[in-house]
């Protein structure tokens, strides 16, 4: 692969649509476009960030292929930093394929996955964190994840990391000065405050890490488990939340045996919702296996929706489940309030939500509760880290700072700080390690 050639790719999904966008980037962009785009203006008069109307022709026979808008982004004012033209054609695969073929026939190459963003990164238009954010913006599964991605794309996380980096550099330069200029009274008299500096950097990293867990969850999705004894209406609630008849509902107890999973966006959050087999005492055979699965899912889940049947008194199985989920974040739900209430108001249920999964009563209230349980009173501005890579890097860096706190001497403090600086550098891509880059770019889809 060469990084100098001109690349082309369709930026919109395959298939028929009202508009299809072909993007071209590289040194040859203008000379290629010149051969196929006929407009009232001459190509040399096209200004950057301007759109022009005209015809796309086949240069072999002057056949008009489509009437289109071409938008010009000239270097360095483009996404990739190179000359970029976007051809907005009519979204017919026949048109798009034909234009793409003509361009590749003249020497352009079909872009690889993520190649436009890779060029933006290599040309210094964005840093590594922003490149990741571009991907996250494209694939964000829910509104909260999109918000995080955009914040990161805008450079908020990069700013924070650079700020941290410059603090380390400051501290390091103090330490180094102290070592290399032992007879300079200016330096020797200055209070270098290493201890305080290290402490404050560690606190800052902790702050970032605190938000990180939530960041990853927002992006990857929360595991929410619906559980309860048989026939409390778990599948009815599941279907209500996913919005269609996903699970089979029947009054026969134990209709749901193997758990069912679906991914939904609820009120801006991305959830992996699980409907599980009910728990009953006498379970045996496959039912027993199903129940064991439910129990192991309980362990992994971020939130449990524990359901009770409002039309029946509480029994042993209810209490068993209540105890099983004792240490987990959960919401207690009393279902079937459309029927006669025969469930006694026990202490357990004092902050439960009373719904009817069947009629949909109070489902909105439940959703609000789910959201506030999952996204606790947290300042959203503090959630910046969204990837395990970020978390690992900062945890590593923190480890070096802790070692620096215990270090023997200024020279070993400096050693740890340099190590931390390298790790932080990898985060923004300032220190490039080829393998990190390769891994990141594998994740990228075509276009942005």
């Amino acid at each position, binding site marked *: *692969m060469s990084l100098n050639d001109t690349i082309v790719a369709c930026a919109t999904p395959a298939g028929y649509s009202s508009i299809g966008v072909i993007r071209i980037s590289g040194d040859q962009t203008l000379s290629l476009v010149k051969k196929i785009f006929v407009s009232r203006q001459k190509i040399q008069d096209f200004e950057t960030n301007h759109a022009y109307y005209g015809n796309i022709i086949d240069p072999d026979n002057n056949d008009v292929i489509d009437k289109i808008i071409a938008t010009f982004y000239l270097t360095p004012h483009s996404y990739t930093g190179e000359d970029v033209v976007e051809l907005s054609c009519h979204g017919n695969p026949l048109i798009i394929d034909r234009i793409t073929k003509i361009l590749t026939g003249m020497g352009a190459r079909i872009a690889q996955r993520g190649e436009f963003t890779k060029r933006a990164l290599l040309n210094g238009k964005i840093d590594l964190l922003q490149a990741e954010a571009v991907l996250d913006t494209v694939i964000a599964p829910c509104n909260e994840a999109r918000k995080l991605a955009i914040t990161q794309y805008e450079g908020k996380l990069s700013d924070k990391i650079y700020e941290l980096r410059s603090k380390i550099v400051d501290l390091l330069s103090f330490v180094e000065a102290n*070592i290399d200029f032992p007879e300079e009274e200016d330096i020797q008299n200055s209070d270098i405050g290493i201890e305080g500096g290290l402490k404050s950097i560690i606190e800052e990293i902790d702050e970032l890490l605190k938000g990180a867990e939530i960041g990853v969850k927002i992006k990857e999705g929360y595991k929410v488990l619906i559980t309860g004894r048989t026939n409390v209406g778990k599948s009815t609630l599941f279907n209500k939340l996913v919005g269609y008849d996903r699970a089979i509902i029947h009054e026969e107890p134990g209709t749901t045996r193997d758990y069912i999973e679906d991914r939904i966006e609820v009120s801006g959050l991305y959830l992996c919702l699980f409907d599980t087999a009910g728990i009953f005492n006498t379970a045996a055979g496959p039912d027993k296996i199903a129940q064991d699965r439910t129990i192991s899912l309980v362990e992994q889940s971020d939130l449990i929706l524990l359901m009770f049947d409002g039309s029946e008194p509480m029994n042993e199985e209810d209490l068993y489940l209540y105890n099983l989920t004792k240490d987990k974040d959960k919401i207690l739900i009393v279902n079937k309030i459309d029927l006669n209430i025969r469930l006694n108001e026990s202490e357990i249920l004092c902050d439960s939500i009373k719904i009817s999964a069947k009629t949909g009563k109070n489902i909105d209230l439940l959703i609000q509760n789910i959201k506030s349980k999952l996204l606790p009173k947290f300042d959203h501005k503090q959630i910046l880290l969204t990837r395990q890579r970020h978390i690992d890097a900062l945890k590593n860096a923190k480890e070096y700072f802790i070692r620096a706190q215990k270090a023997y001497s200024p*020279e*070993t403090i400096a050693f740890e700080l340099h190590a931390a600086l390298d790790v932080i550098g990898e985060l923004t891509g300032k220190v490039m390690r*080829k393998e990190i880059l390769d891994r990141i770019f594998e994740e990228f889809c075509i276009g942005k």
Partner: protein
Amino acid sequence: MQTSKYDIIVIGGGHAGIEAALAPARMGYSVLLLTLNIDNIGQMSCNPSIGGLAKGHLVKEVDVLGGEIGLLADKTAIQYRMLNRSKGPAVWSPRTQNDRLQYRVAAQEILENTKNIKIKQEEASEVIIDDHRAIGVKTSIGNEYRAHAIVLTTGTFLNGLMHIGLDSFAGGRLAEARSFSLSESLKKCGLNLGRLKTGTSPRIAKNSVDLSNLQVHKGEEKHFTFSFRTNQITNEQLPCYITRTNKNTHEIIQKSLDRSPLYTGKIIGVGPRYCPSIETKIVRFADRDSHLVFIEPEGRDSGEFYLNGLATSLPYDVQLDMLRSIEGLGKVEITRPGYAVEYDFVYPVQLYPSLETKAVKNLFCAGQINGTSGYEEAAAQGIMAGINAVLKLRDEKPFVLKRYEAYIGVLIDDLITKNTLEPYRMFTSLAEHRLILRIDNVADRLMHYGVKYGLIREDEWQRFEQDRKEIDNAIENLKKIIVKSEIANPILKEKSENEIPEERGGQSLFQILKRPGIQYQDIERMSDMKFEENIGTRVEIETKYNGYIKREDEMIEKLKEIEKIRIPANFSYVDIKGLSNEAKSKLSEVKPENLDQASRIQGISPSDILLLLLHIKKDGR
């Protein structure tokens, strides 16, 4: 016209020239040393001191390679200080005050008594070139000398211009001629020359100073040696004295800036930021009302003092006024004024790592001509250039030290990958692998090279190996011997270290010595182990730094992987379209040998490196 042939000609008899002449001569090659003044061979042009931060490391490194600077410093030391004792063993920095005259005499003596060296007081005026290859030197009196390799160690003498106030005059040092036509000859060879500036302080008459109220700055009682070949010395030490500038001094300087060559634009060369003149300090740090001045003896029998911290190129009358405003110097007499000197240097990116110029084969440069400052930096390049000149004429692979092997490696790599914009001085912070570039392990790191090139004698090597074995054995024993808690705990308690819990029974001596507060002497108290001082110190350092050394080793292993990605010598950067023009020209100029070196070139970004990697791989297929 006199014509004769040598293996190697060295031009210049300073600290680089001495090593560049001695190494080849000791390797058995004939050497001609050309100097403008035989009496000034080994002259310390500036402060009468050797070593200090990172420079002490360089001296020790040159020493175990078989160089002379350590021995000369040991022979002529008049005060000893180990700087940075509290900051960790990797940055312990030995420094001596030295007798300026004795140093020179000792240097001349060794050169004159070394077989294979001829010394001639003639001005080299031209490098004779044949087909881009240096083949000899013409001198100003019309003689011509032929050689297989030539080493330039011209210091500040290339087109030197001295400044005292607004007066300027040609010269390389006070009252010494400069070398003008050589500069022109180098330009003709295709070398690109730049201009740097440095300066020195006034010297004063010892008997005109009132020392009675000044703070005495004594050396450490304990002597050390730079050279492993020097037997323990016990010469009497001379003290230095400390005084300070004051508001009055600063006013005098402030008022005279219109007669300062630095501040009137007369000096165009760039001076060192780490060693500013007093006028620069006062302009740049106007809020300070006092600066330290060290009054240092010029030598045991000398009638002069050196004023460290007062480098200046102000007019003579201002120098005198300013000095007389300082406590203790009220009636001072200047013996030699401070001055600034501007000189030509060869932009060092024009050199290969062997210090041979890329433009002219068999022509080597070492020392201040490469934009460095300092005797130690000069000596380090001198020995490397000397050895490499020999290897060149033997047609062998050059001797290049890595950044993780030696400060010398850091120094030369920095020079050839970054065009120095100010006189380059060695600092420990320039060494990424500082924790393993220590003075205690200098022989481990480098002595085998000295042996390889025939500069270290067999018996010297045996001595080293014996020490090494002793240290390794001691560390093995430390790991094996478990000391009972009831024996260790009282000593641990005394040293404010955590005691070993009774139920654990004991701990290995190795683990105990790893603790910050425990020294090898404490180990002796807990066990039957006994150490000689030099062995004990090294055992202690290697034990305490065990974890760090392992981490450094891991980093170096990773680095070696990147070093393995070699860039072909004829690689064409111009054809890589994604590279910026700056990157293209820098890379074409430096011609890095591998990807690691390329990554350190100034102005080369990580993305340039990635581009390079992609192209190297493509070409390699």
